[in-house]
């Protein structure tokens, strides 16, 4: 017995230098030290090269250029901007444009993806096949090619504004309100009259009301088993009060229709062709990925769940809403969020179609004008990194909240 103990005891005696290599307890320190030294050496080497190169070129690292006047125009600005604004303002304009196109594309991609994903499981053979053709065709071709294809449709196929002019016009406006031209799409713009704020507030209140009604109905269902109708009351709550207030106040919100004046359309909202190309290419491309996630999510819920619900006497849409979807969402949401991240990162391809997002302003014209490549690329990376880390942080919180609570 005593022989055994002597064998399994750790070797006694003081620390010797050879233990750094031979003893597993200390070897990890050696490895970590070597790794740290290598990383520091690489960074030191790169850093010293950087300073040597900068000194040789008479440059320095400085972010002062952000305060200088930018001297270039941007075709789509969500905030006040002119060519006399600073490079910093140009970067902010770019950030807002990135967020705008990413937001639009995320929403559209989700709608397309959910519809296509559900239709891929449809009992209808033809629809199922068409949807799998859509998914395979769009997933397997680079998004860059889709962006260029849609941009070409927007700029080459659509008519020029002057095709809308005269008695023998070759193009006409849709419903007299929408004009699809090679300079972009023109839509009616809302004109906010006095009292429009009240209408808007009532609408917001109705949206909240719909949510509260649905919550109440669900609680009633779970507590007492009584079923309230969901569909038409939601619609009534959503639209009736708003329309009522709108007409009572004497129609305070008007529409400003785009009109052909001179060589171009005036008034209304102009949506640039480059924005539409980027938006829809990202949406359709990512929609194909989301469709696969949705399909996988729904298929991950075991058949027994739906059958159990059916044997309890639930109707098909209730089985979907109350039994299958809540469980499928747990599988669908994490990849969905990473698809949103991909959309945001892929929106940097805007540079190909001339949409002025952050990669086009800060990483494009500002970089070329000032020659401050290191600073610009650094800021560009910091921006995308910040967005990615924020979204993935939120995703982790969400994942913890909805993950299956097991014993």
């Amino acid at each position, binding site marked *: 017995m005593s022989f055994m103990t002597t064998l399994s005891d750790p070797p006694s005696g003081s620390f010797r230098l050879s233990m750094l290599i031979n003893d597993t307890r200390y070897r990890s320190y050696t490895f970590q030290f070597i790794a740290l030294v290598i*990383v520091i050496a690489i960074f030191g080497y790169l850093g010293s090269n950087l300073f040597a190169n900068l000194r040789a070129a008479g440059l320095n690292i400085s972010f002062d250029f952000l305060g200088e006047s930018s001297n270039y125009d941007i075709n789509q600005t969500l905030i006040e901007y002119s060519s006399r604004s600073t490079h910093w303002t140009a970067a902010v304009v770019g950030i807002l444009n990135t967020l705008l196109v990413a937001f639009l594309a995320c929403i559209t991609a989700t709608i397309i993806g959910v519809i296509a994903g559900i239709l891929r499981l449809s009992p209808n053979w033809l*629809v199922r096949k068409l949807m799998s053709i859509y998914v395979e065709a769009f997933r397997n071709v*680079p998004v860059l090619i889709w962006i260029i294809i849609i941009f070409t449709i927007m700029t080459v196929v659509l008519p020029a504004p002057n095709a809308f002019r005269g008695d023998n016009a070759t193009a006409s406006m849709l419903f007299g309100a929408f004009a699809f031209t090679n300079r972009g799409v023109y839509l009616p713009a809302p004109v906010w009259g006095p009292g429009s704020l009240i209408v808007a507030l009532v609408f917001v209140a109705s949206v909240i009301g719909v949510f509260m009604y649905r919550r109440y109905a669900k609680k009633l269902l779970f507590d007492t088993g009584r079923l309230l109708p969901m569909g038409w009351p939601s619609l009534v709550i959503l639209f009736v009060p708003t329309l009522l207030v709108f007409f009572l106040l004497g129609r305070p919100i008007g529409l400003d229709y785009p009109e052909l004046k001179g060589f171009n359309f005036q008034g209304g909202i102009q949506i640039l062709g480059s924005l539409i190309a980027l938006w829809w290419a990202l949406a359709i491309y990512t929609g194909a990925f989301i469709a696969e996630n949705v399909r996988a999510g729904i298929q991950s819920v075991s058949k027994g769940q739906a059958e159990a619900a059916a044997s309890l006497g639930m109707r098909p849409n209730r089985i979907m809403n109350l039994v299958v979807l809540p469980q499928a969402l747990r599988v669908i949401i994490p990849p969905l969020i990473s698809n949103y991240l991909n959309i945001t990162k892929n929106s940097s*391809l805007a540079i190909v179609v001339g949409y002025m997002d952050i990669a086009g302003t800060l990483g494009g014209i500002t970089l070329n004008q000032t020659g401050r490549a290191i600073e610009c*690329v650094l800021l560009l990376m910091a921006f995308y990194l910040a967005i990615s*880390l924020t979204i993935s942080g939120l995703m982790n919180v969400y994942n913890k909240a909805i993950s299956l609570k097991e014993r």
Partner: protein
Amino acid sequence: MSDTHQQSIGYVRDSMIPESEPPLGEAGAIKWMRANLFSSIANGFLTLAALTALYFLISGFLPWIVNGVWDAPSIRECREILDGKVGGCFAVLTERWNQLLFGFKYPSDIYWRPALAFLLLFVAIAPVLFSKVFPKQILIFTALYPFIAYFLIWGGSILIPIFALLGLIVGYLVYSRFVAQSFAAGFFGGIAAALAFWWITGFIAVDGVLAIEAVPSRDMGGFMLNMLLGTVCVSLSIPFGIALALGRQSDMPIIKWICILFIEFIRGVPLITLLFVASVVLAYFLPPGTNFDLILRVIIMITMFASAYIAEVIRGGLAALPNGQYEAGDSLGLDYAQKMRLIILPQALKISIPGIVNVSVGLFKDTTLVSVISMFDLVGMIRGPILASTEWNGVYWELLGFAALLFFVVCYGISQYSQWLERQLQTDHK
């Protein structure tokens, strides 16, 4: 009891009726259509809507393809031949196929070299992809393939790939000599030996020794460039990805954090910013006076990018293994390297294959992004030299459709292969 029973069931038939045909509505095409196309009113409408959409798609595309002109020197003559009919000018493909595939600078008399390298690629990857069908001996050719392909595509002296190969062999010999003592000694010793060998051979003048026509990297272009970047970066990024994944799972905090920082940084930024780094920033970080090839800088950046993503996929595979596997390795008395090599990684990599294939397909599609930093890959060739030329200014759909088709064929093929492989590797009973 049984007697009375027998008498009372006199009405039971004693002969079988012959089977009759199922009712007309319950068999064959009609049954199939009722079940799959018109099972309900809503489904009927969906079917009709889908048929209408299909009709418009086909009626739009068919004349364009059928009337297509395959032989014309420019878009004007192509339109003259078409004479107002709807049709594609596919002549641009027959006239510029060499530029689309090889770029506009690659010497046209040696197109056979990259083409041969492309064909040999299939021979080289066949034993890896279909390990049960092809004999193991071809794997030797797979190991030699990178050097053969380099020699074929870039040309120059044959001594360069031979020295590179010899360096690897020297490294391997040193590794197998020391690996019995400890994996770390063998691994680092092997690397050191290979580097020393390359350093020594760097002094030997190889210019023009047994040389074929050399092609500089900046002359690469077209779909060849996409294939080149895709295959090189994917194959380089898998070992780096494995190392990063193991580092991220490691117990050593410093190594773990280095790996986490690297992976999260790379995954947080778009590839295009890394390409900007390759094209405008990386030169600042290299020793003054070095003139690093753009294609090499891009390969470095894309490999870093891909290895971060592959590391996450492999980490998923490592995490999916039950803890018992790690403990089993420990209880057999294996050290870390043995445990990983013999027990953990074979299983983890098998789980990760679909993910690795997904990353590879995504990466191959992302190689088109190099056109943004003015490299002339397939998309760059289309947007640049071909659409800007006077002959073919305005032939959009034929060119973009061709590019889309090429990528579709490759990516769809890879993803179908991965699904097949998943079924092959399924060793559990389902």
